[in-house]
């Protein structure tokens, strides 16, 4: 079943891609899938591609993330590049249900195979990201998309985890989003690579630009963010102002992702692998795991000691098949 799906994936079957996205988003057989898509069978239609340019968009709800992405899709397609969009919307912590309504604002020609849009439900507590986002990016990259655009839930302040997963993080602000003290709070302004002041056709756009620039200048004068200057520009999806310029900036930023610089990337991968092995062993009712858990639950061993024993168990030989 998975083998057939992977074969279809390598023949660039979009339904197979859609199904694999579902499986990875649910955390189902992720390691197998990523291993499978990474190695196209001989004679497969999919040629090895360069890394995709991965750009995330954050900003509070209603700031216009979906609409802007819709405009950028047009821009990317006009340059002949292919683009995938992962649009995250919140999932109810109560029912587990979600209303995913982003693609509504991203009109695409129905027969345009160069675009793939997928809505994802993001559970809380993951920095406003759908689970397994890094794996989903790898999947889309393997399919051959040149550009991957990610719309975060837009939790606002503190939504910074996404930065590590992407090449460029764009923060959207709009007129009347608070006074300049808001920008002094730690969080978004620190991590954004590009700050787009959206709805620039509305009154107040100049003022917010001045506030943001002044706040950023404070950081520069303190010698903090001189390494990679943050681009700031005014844009409007309604009038089209600045959209082309924004894309030029995004396309010119150096690719940050996958450069194997951050030890944290490796740590995250290790954590994911352990979690996947744990999930499989738990579902299978593996006896050594059950004994360890029982001993811990009954207080026979301390938590830190049990955690170490768990790691040793998960990296031991019987678990490596997982």
């Amino acid at each position: 079943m998975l083998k057939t799906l992977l074969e279809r994936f390598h023949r660039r079957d979009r339904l197979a891609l859609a199904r694999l996205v579902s499986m990875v988003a649910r955390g189902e057989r992720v390691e197998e899938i990523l291993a499978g898509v990474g190695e196209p069978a001989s004679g497969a239609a999919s040629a090895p591609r360069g890394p995709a340019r991965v750009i995330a968009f954050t900003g509070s709800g209603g700031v216009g993330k979906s609409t802007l992405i819709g405009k950028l899709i047009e821009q990317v397609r006009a340059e002949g590049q292919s683009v995938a969009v992962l649009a995250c919307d919140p999932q109810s912590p109560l029912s587990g249900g979600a209303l995913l309504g982003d693609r509504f604002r991203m009109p695409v020609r129905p027969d345009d195979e160069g675009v793939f849009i997928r809505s994802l439900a993001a559970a809380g507590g993951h920095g406003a990201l759908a689970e397994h986002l890094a794996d989903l990016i790898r999947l889309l990259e393997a399919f051959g998309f040149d550009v991957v655009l990610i719309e975060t839930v837009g939790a606002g302040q503190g939504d910074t985890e996404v930065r590590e997963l992407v090449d460029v993080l764009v923060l959207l602000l709009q007129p009347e989003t608070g006074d300049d003290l808001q920008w002094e709070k730690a969080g978004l302004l620190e991590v954004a690579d590009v700050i787009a002041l959206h709805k620039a056709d509305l009154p107040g756009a100049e003022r917010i630009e001045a506030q943001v620039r002044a706040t950023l200048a404070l950081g520069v004068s303190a010698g903090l963010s001189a390494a990679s200057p943050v681009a700031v520009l005014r844009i409007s999806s309604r009038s089209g102002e600045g959209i082309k310029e924004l894309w030029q900036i995004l396309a010119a930023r150096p690719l940050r992702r996958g450069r194997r610089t951050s030890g944290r990337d490796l740590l995250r991968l290790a954590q994911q692998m352990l979690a996947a092995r744990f999930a499989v062993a738990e579902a299978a009712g593996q006896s050594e795991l059950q004994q360890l858990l029982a001993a811990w639950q009954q207080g026979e061993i301390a938590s830190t000691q049990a955690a170490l024993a768990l790691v040793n168990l998960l990296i031991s030989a019987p678990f490596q098949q997982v």
Partner: protein
Amino acid sequence: MIEPHPLRVVLAKVGLDGHDRGIKIVARALRDAGMQVIYAGLWLTPEAVVRTVAEEDADWLGLSLLSGAHMTLVPRVLQLLREAGLEHVGVIVGGIIPENDIPKLLEMGVARVFGPGTPLPEIVSFLREHSGASHA
């Protein structure tokens, strides 16, 4: 070893029809029942709807029509779903559908037609009961 997962339901309006109150109420009910609802919006072509179903890997498609064009648009959507290899996706229809047309739509392959006044739990339980075992 596949765990149950939430149903994914695409809700859409096809053709020239701006009445979206009903479909939004259904969207809310399905969301509150724990389903993942992809609201595809208004004024869509059958081609755009089928594309959405494909990309979203949906289990169900709900079409709302209050325009009177259901006998043209619904068969077109069903045909495009089959051509796209999406015959496993169940289709339900809501809106203003004259009683005489309901058997015809069912014959074409629509799973169920829900008219005005349908209690929302009826739609929720229909989707649950007619989905495979792999769904929560």
